[in-house]
């Protein structure tokens, strides 16, 4: 029984349909990557799962609970946390308050929340240094760390991260990937939408490729990395010789 299963989901904005029957699964403890160029509907799928966008048809289940069509606050209560595209930390609030906002829906008391706060500060020491700083004064990389940490504070069963590397220097992306692997090691399953195909395939166990609102290819990340179609379309590798993937 998968942790998350998305069956034949369609969704869109107004008269523009974006998702045309999506099937996707995340197994317990796995990191799943969702790759594809911008505008194909990756973010739309995450927004549909997290309830920001209504599902038009199809089913979304977490464990055995059907969460399709639930409002965002109930999807959060069910345990799916969505780290949005562009990070979207709360300005005029310091880092610590942003992290506490992550734990807003939790009912398991202050000691448990304080314990998780120490865990995320341990995972991202720089956030501890800047904990009393206004979140909008952080650098791009630090903001992404804070957004991920804020998601962890909600004690999720599934963490969804939208556009991990957007706008970040490659060096920072390497650091973040290492942190995500460490988090996954604690057993947390993840669904990561990622622009840079190399980063995505390095990071994940399974991957799904989306083109204009449909899943066209899926499988283990290793197999996809060697797949000629992926190398051609996304790595633009084939024509220019001499570049190791």
């Amino acid at each position, binding site marked *: 029984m998968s942790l998350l299963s998305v069956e034949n989901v369609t969704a869109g904005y*107004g*008269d*523009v349909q974006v998702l045309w029957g999506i099937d996707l699964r995340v197994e317990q403890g796995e990191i799943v990557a969702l790759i*594809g*160029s*911008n*505008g194909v509907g990756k973010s739309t799928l995450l927004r549909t799962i997290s309830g920001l966008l209504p599902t038009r048809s199809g089913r979304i289940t977490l464990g055995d609970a059907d969460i399709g069509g639930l409002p965002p606050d109930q999807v959060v209560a069910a345990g799916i946390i969505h780290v949005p595209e562009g990070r979207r930390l709360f300005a005029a609030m310091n880092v610590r308050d942003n992290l506490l906002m992550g734990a807003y829906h939790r009912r398991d008391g202050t000691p448990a929340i304080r314990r998780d706060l120490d865990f995320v500060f341990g995972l991202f020491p720089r956030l501890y240094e800047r904990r009393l700083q206004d979140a909008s*004064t952080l*650098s*791009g990389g630090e903001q992404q760390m804070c957004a991920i940490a804020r998601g962890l504070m909600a004690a999720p069963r599934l963490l969804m991260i939208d556009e991990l590397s*957007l*706008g*970040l*220097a*490659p*060096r*920072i992306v*390497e650091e973040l990937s290492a942190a995500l692997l460490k988090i996954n090691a604690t057993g947390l399953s993840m669904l990561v939408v990622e*622009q840079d195909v190399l980063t995505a395939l390095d990071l994940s166990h399974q991957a799904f490729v989306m083109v204009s609102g449909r899943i066209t290819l899926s499988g283990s990340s290793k197999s996809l990395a060697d797949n000629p179609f992926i190398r051609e*379309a*996304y*790595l*633009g590798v084939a024509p*220019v010789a*001499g*570049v*190791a993937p």
Partner: protein
Amino acid sequence: MTAMLRLLNVSRRFGGLIAVNNVSFELRAGEIVGLIGPNGAGKTTLVNLITGVHRAGAGEIWYGDERIDRLPPDRIARLGIARTFQVVQPFPLMTVLENVTGGALFAGGVPTIGAAKEKAMEHLTFTGLSHLAERPASSLTLANRKRLELAKSLATNPRLLLLDEVNAGLNAAEIDAALDLIRAIAARGITILLIEHVMKVVLTATSRVLVLHHGELIADDTPGSVTRDPRVIEAYLGPKFAARYGALAP
């Protein structure tokens, strides 16, 4: 001959934060120059300074032999400096054709709405959007919205075009198409400053690359030497990346 655009020791701070710090460089007519740097390095602020959205705290900006760092943005647009926005800024409820007509009608200097619409249609065909002319701008995909931004700024018939992250989010195939478009625009004699994150575009399309880091210009050289410059690698590219793309650039 005088440079098309000249920045002399330009700086700007917001509150305590120095966004752009003592930047100087020149752009000569017909060049395609890249501008790279991590998020928050000051790239967009630099574009806002050139286009008059922000006023320079210190230093001068010259466009040909006219000083423009004190002019309002609409005057600068009418002088022939156009830009695309990193966060796409269409007129949402207007059609694609009307969006581009606006460019031709005002900065483009076309007198009547009718003539401006014809001019706009030319730019739509050039950017491959003519089949979407009557669609509302809000219904476009991201790639097409980026093309709409391009068509709008072309309609103002600029001599200098600042492309801010026009290729962000496109896949390899879409990037190749965008590259051809950029080369076609340059072929019309328009000077281009390409603000980019997608290294593949910058390394193959530009003759010169400016690297910005924490608001300072740390490199102004050919793409090849920039990717091998240790300061750039340390500040932005990271060793693994440089190895992968080092061989790619001339």
